[in-house]
């Protein structure tokens, strides 16, 4: 089932007990109704008082209409969700509002006045701030320097950094952001960097905040904190437009939700009067099942065997400390763990991207320790990387050429060193269709695809090779619910074909739903092996935090 940690925590507390899988959805719903009802009552005073109105917006790209006839009306002081499948046109619509794109048709009103937002500076002046999914911060600058960049307070012609730091501190305290104004960006976590982005907009006086998939890059704990921050922001009268694929987040914090399907505006619903199921079916246009159907696994021989593995990170700090792990044919092993406990280093060691200090990695009984990525790939490994822009795609290649990134030199796609573009693009066309990658064509540059569709393209490429072992690191990050369902189904299908799957995810429900066995990783080691049906999320959370008490397994 697809209800999440956060909600379970809340219900858990409210019911004074840990979750019982069968009953939860109804309880959730009951609670949402009560909560949201209160919220909407609070909102009544502001009714029809829109801070932002986007009317009949149309935006075209070569070969595709990204937005058509979309209406978005945001009330003062509300959190307004923008929901839609991957490639539905959410980011595009927000880029229009932020002045990065000019619409072909339509009208934008801010605080009742008709405006032409020709570039982001105009948006800033109108009080609109945007936090993009990929942050735009200067790594070597401090938090304060980043925040004031472009609108520095001056004293005698010099930057008044003391005053700036004080102002940043005040802002940060007012909204409970807890950032250190003097810290360097490169030393702080992704979650903190996101807060700096939020502060940047607040510092410039934004009272309408656009957050484009802010939770996709966060850990569950950071998500909780972000939600608290959003709540304190609206208390101060700030309005928020939130893009997210996680329905439970919408249910928890949003007042209203506007749905876009394939570029068309579908309408706006009051979250209090809706349910995750309704939102999902509005968005996709069909019923969605939240449970992952799967039969029990029938594990066979070992595909991946890791013995006593030690790996250092780029700074020379040992991150994997004598780890042992086995993944068998026909099973999905999920690695649960808090980010930064050596998961990335483990993956990089298996895939040949970083050096193994000591220990052994066997794939199909063949020693692949410290072999080149090419050799390891050829030995039967696929890898869905965590960072899709850094590793997964060559963004300036057409999406079709990205589909053969590891196989271009093989007989199917080239002859005597000459690429056979017909075959490459036929192959791409097939994958695009099979995995429902939404793109104007297979010749479109990967860069122009929406975030979720880039991810689907990578998954298509990796799963289609049908290797003995698939390493899937955060495979559904940034995907819509329909796509998540599809990807989970695909991973299970591969398992049933007798492949081994190693899944790394920070989403506990993904780990719980998809894995046949959970390996808990803490401080560079596997500290527990448990079956998902024998443990609940609380117990798993404790194990991930390094607790030695193994509950239920």
């Amino acid at each position, binding site marked *: 089932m697809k209800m999440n940690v956060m909600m379970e925590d809340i219900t858990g507390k409210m019911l004074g007990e840990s979750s019982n899988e069968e009953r939860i959805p109804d309880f959730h719903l009951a609670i949402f109704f009560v909560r949201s009802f209160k919220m909407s009552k609070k909102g009544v005073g502001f009714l029809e008082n829109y801070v932002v109105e986007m009317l009949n917006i149309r935006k075209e790209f*070569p070969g595709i209409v990204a937005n058509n006839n979309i209406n978005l009306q945001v009330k003062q002081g509300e959190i307004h969700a923008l929901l839609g499948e991957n490639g539905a046109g959410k980011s595009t619509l927000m880029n229009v509002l932020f002045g990065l794109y*000019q619409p*072909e048709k339509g009208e934008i009103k801010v605080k009742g006045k008709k405006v032409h937002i020709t570039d982001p500076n105009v948006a800033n002046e109108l009080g609109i701030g945007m936090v993009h999914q990929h942050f735009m911060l200067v790594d070597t600058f401090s938090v304060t320097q980043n925040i004031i960049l472009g609108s520095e307070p001056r004293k005698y012609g010099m930057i008044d950094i003391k005053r700036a730091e004080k102002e940043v501190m005040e802002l940060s305290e007012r909204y409970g952001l807890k950032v250190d104004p003097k810290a360097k960006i490169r030393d702080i976590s992704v979650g903190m960097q996101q807060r700096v982005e939020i502060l940047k907009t607040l510092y410039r006086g934004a009272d309408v905040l656009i957050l484009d998939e802010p939770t996709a890059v966060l850990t569950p704990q950071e998500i909780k904190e972000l939600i608290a921050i959003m709540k304190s922001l609206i208390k101060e009268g700030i309005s928020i437009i939130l893009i997210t694929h996680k329905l439970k987040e919408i249910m928890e914090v949003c007042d209203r939700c506007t749905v876009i399907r394939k570029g068309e505006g579908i309408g706006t619903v009051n979250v209090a009067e809706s349910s995750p199921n309704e939102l999902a079916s509005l968005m996709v246009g069909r019923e969605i099942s939240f449970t992952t159907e799967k039969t029990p696994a029938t594990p066979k021989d070992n595909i991946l065997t890791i013995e006593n593995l030690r790996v250092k990170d780029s700074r020379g700090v040992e991150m994997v400390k004598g780890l042992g792990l086995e993944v068998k044919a026909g099973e999905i092993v999920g690695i649960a763990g808090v980010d930064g406990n050596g998961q990335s280093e483990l993956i990089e060691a298996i*895939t040949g*991207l970083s050096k193994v200090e000591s220990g052994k990695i066997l794939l199909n009984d063949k020693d692949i320790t410290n072999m*080149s*990525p*090419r*050799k*390891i*790939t*050829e030995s039967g490994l696929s*890898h869905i*990387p965590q960072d899709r822009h*850094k*590793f*997964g*795609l*060559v*963004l*300036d*290649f057409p999406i079709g*050429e990205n589909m053969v*990134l*590891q196989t*271009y*030199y093989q007989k199917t796609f*080239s002859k005597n*060193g*000459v*690429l056979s573009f017909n075959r490459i693009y036929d192959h791409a066309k097939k994958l695009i269709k099979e995995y429902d990658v939404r793109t104007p064509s297979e010749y479109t540059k990967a860069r122009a695809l929406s975030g979720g569709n880039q991810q689907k393209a990578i998954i298509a490429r990796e799963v289609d090779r049908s290797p003995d072992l698939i390493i899937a690191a955060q495979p559904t990050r940034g995907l819509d619910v329909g796509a998540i369902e599809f990807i989970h189904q695909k991973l299970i299908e591969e398992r049933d074909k007798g492949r081994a799957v190693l899944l790394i995810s920070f989403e506990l429900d993904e780990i719980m739903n998809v894995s046949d066995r959970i390996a808990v990783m803490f401080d560079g080691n596997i500290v527990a092996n448990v079956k998902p049906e024998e443990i609940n999320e609380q117990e798993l959370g404790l194990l991930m935090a390094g607790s030695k008490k193994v509950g239920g397994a």
Partner: protein
Amino acid sequence: MFSNRMFNILVPIISVFLGLVAGAIIMLGFGYNPIRGYIALIDGAFGNAYFTGETIRRVTPYILTGLAVAFAFRAGLFNIGAEGQVIVGWLAAVWVGSSMEAPMIIHLPLAILAAAVAGGLWGFVPGILKAKLGVHEVIITIMMNYIALFLTNHLIRNVLTETKDTTDRVLESASLASNWIMEITSFSRLHWGLLIALAAAVIMWFLLEKTTTGYELRSVGYNRHASEYAGMKVGKNIVLAMVISGGFAGLAGAMEGLGTFGYMPTHSSFTNIGFDGIAVALLGGNAAFGTVIAAFLFGVLKEGSLNMPTEAGVPSELVEIVIALIIFFVASSYIIRWALLSLKKEGK
């Protein structure tokens, strides 16, 4: 209204046009007649058979150094060392061309190959240093330029000759020059090299766009991490790109050594053929055929400018300014793109 492709063609054309306009304004400012100036320039480039021949002769090495810089650039590398690669290629070609005897069918290809190999070697050094030690190629290629300059001077004075300032002439069997071409171009120094340069452009296009090697090079140029993830050997590709790039530049040296001059003099300073290749590649959008066209433009401007002082009284330095302005406008093509885009908006 404009497709992306149109854009890529339109931007350089507008850049060149703006450069010419700016040049005209400067000529006016200094009291010269820009129309007479530009007519003199065209005359100087194509006014008669001799001028036409000299213009094409000048274009030939530009094509090759342009390709050299463009090729490296596509693999994400900045080869400022084309200059040094030209010089060593020149010497290698002349050395083979003057010091051995063989039938033309062996001798000429061998001399040309020697130039490519020498240039390739000069590219290999910065390539391997970058791949193995991460040393930036710009620094090493600049140093390699000086090594090439002084090393070739030394070899000419002390090894190829006894304290003379020029080498012996290359033998007939290793020469690109042709009596027939000379006759139809009123004894210009035009030679067969243009065919080699054009063939090199076709090779570069084919290699980059059609082969698995080119796929790897482009991939490494765009995204090293993804290339490594996909199993490509990033270091190998860096070295390969620098070697091929150096090879193209070395061929440009062969054009001078086996074609234009037929020998190699010692140089007191750089030839600038390699440095101009950077501008040619930039103007040509780092694409093979764009580079050919840009080289033609460059050659025409440079050759035609020689005629401007005599025919229109405009100092030839001014033409240097015009060329600089054109490059400036291409480099800031962002502005032109932006202007075109706003035009497009208003057209709606």
